[in-house]
């Protein structure tokens, strides 16, 4: 019963500038901690069965326990009422342990991956969203109590015209610079589209045996594979259009090792990913998107906005293309025009 009382205490602010606070947050990758966090997303993504795990992250409440000794030695468990899934990182890759299936999966880092629960930890998400923000996009908020600690507020307001996220609020630990809470806002000013926060935080270094992983006796061991859609994109590297250097006013990013048929555009909070879709996946996804409320179907393709996240299927000359990211529907339409030369 004590933590709610501590959280109710007024937070002490500090005269730290927004730029300095961002610098401190980005420098917090070496801060060790053990924490208990929850993320809540209100985005209902109509993406069918191919991407349910990724979609659940944005639509459900995810409870996480984390032990972080450093960038190459950490563990994040997703806790559910009937089981848990733990990710253990050791510098070479990650072990993912799924208790309910009794499966341990070894994965090595790839150039592209779908979001996983460890990406939603406030410390990781906060640093990622702050890392590419321009100085004139940053401003200071007041202070709040998060996980019983004083946290200084930092706001990012993306300048890109294509941005569908008007602002991101990051609450940074006053003492260590660790991001403690991240709120990603959409058009709805009442509720954030995504809110992830530590509820408990202990800044002592967790023991090495907590983050280490040994495959349990009798468990099935698997080699991690990229999601089917990324595999398909890799197979189709010779297919699909040569992607342009910019789309909808967003510059293409260099992603080492990524298939040629996949492009990522934009920076910071405003990102747009484009990739070739296998025909079967495209048909299912198109049907899902066209059934979604507010779907726009026109000669350019089918597009929807789920909160600040936009999705679009475009029929290109060499097959279907999937466009998705934190961009507006108008930006998706402009990107589709850039890719196909068609007008809406």
């Amino acid at each position, binding site marked *: 019963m004590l933590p709610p009382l501590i959280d109710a205490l007024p937070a002490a602010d500090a005269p730290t500038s927004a730029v300095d606070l961002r610098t401190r947050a980005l420098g917090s990758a070496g801060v060790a901690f053990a924490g*208990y966090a929850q993320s809540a997303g209100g985005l209902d993504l109509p993406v069918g069965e191919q991407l349910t795990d990724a979609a659940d992250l944005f639509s459900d409440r995810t409870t996480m*326990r984390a032990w972080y000794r450093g960038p190459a030695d950490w563990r994040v*468990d997703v*806790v559910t009422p009937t089981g*848990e899934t733990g990710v253990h990182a050791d510098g070479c890759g990650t072990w993912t342990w799924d208790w309910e299936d*009794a499966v341990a999966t070894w994965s090595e880092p790839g150039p592209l991956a779908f979001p996983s629960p460890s990406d939603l930890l406030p410390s990781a998400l906060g640093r990622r969203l702050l890392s590419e923000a321009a100085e004139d996009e940053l401003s200071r908020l007041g202070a709040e109590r998060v996980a019983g600690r004083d946290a200084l507020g930092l706001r990012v307001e993306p300048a890109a015209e294509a941005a569908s996220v008007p602002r991101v609020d990051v609450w940074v630990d006053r003492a260590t610079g660790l991001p403690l809470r991240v709120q990603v806002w959409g058009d709805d000013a009442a509720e954030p589209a995504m809110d992830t926060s530590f509820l408990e935080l202990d800044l002592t270094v967790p023991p090495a045996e907590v983050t280490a*992983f040994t495959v349990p006796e009798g*468990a099935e061991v698997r080699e991690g594979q990229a999601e089917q859609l990324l595999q398909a994109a890799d197979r189709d590297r010779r297919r699909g259009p040569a992607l342009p250097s910019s789309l909808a006013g967003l510059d293409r990013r260099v992603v080492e090792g990524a298939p040629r048929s996949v492009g990522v555009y934009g920076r910071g909070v405003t990102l747009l990913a484009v990739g070739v879709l296998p025909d079967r996946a495209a048909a299912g996804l198109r049907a899902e998107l066209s059934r979604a409320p507010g779907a726009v179907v026109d000669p350019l393709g089918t597009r929807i906005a789920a909160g600040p996240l936009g999705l679009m299927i475009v029929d290109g000359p060499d097959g279907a293309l999937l466009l998705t990211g934190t961009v507006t529907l108008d930006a998706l339409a402009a990107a589709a025009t850039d890719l196909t030369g068609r007008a809406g």
Partner: protein
Amino acid sequence: MIVVELRKLFRRPRTWVTIGLLNALPVLVAVLLAWTDLAPRPGEGPAFLSAVLTNGTLYPLAALAIVLPLFLPIAVSVVAGEAVAGEAQGGTLRYLLARPAGRTRLLVAKLIAVVAFVVVTVVVVAGVGYVVGRLLFEVQPTGGTALSGTSLTSQELAVRTLLAIGYVTVSMLGVAAFALFFSTLTDSPLGATLGALAVLIASSLLFTLDAASSFAPYLPTRYWLAFVDLFRDPILWRDVVRGVALQAVYVVVLLGAAWANFTTKDVTS
């Protein structure tokens, strides 16, 4: 008076019929699982049930998870709801109070009998689950695997199972406190039982609503399933501690209200 109440409770055939029926469902589930070799898909069904085919020592926990959401609270509500209202309906309450023992002692005796029922019921469900699990499923001699993938020795598994039994017992004390309080308000045992069940059903329903998230941590059923956290590594104490503290608050407040009501009400039946 305490001995009298305990004797009365445990000599009543329906007490044992209730406990027997409570065990029937987990036994039936175990037989079906062993017969068909079909466990629920991971993430579906009660906690631990998907894992018992490969480790029968987890079946006491699966048995508790099977009866915890509905059957165990019903049994506890029936017994606790009848504690005072049953005497009033049977016309024996006046005679009980005519003895010099006093109302407070009678309430304490009833309370202890209800607590004893809760303890015996939970232990019997876990015990029957243990026997059934060992008889019908494979048993790992080295203990088992924690939810986090670390190995648990047989001793660690036994200690955590005992902690889980204790936690479920504490959770049921909150149910008993609701039913006992309602039992002092009415002369109808059925009314007291249904009152307690109504509270629990409402609590379970509200817990699923995001709109009720502001007071969800204070709902009586909020932390019932937290005994699963005892099998993570390291143990996740957060919800277990909150669950015990919340039940303690409900028990103290409701028993206080029951005592205040019972010691001041006019007993006419």
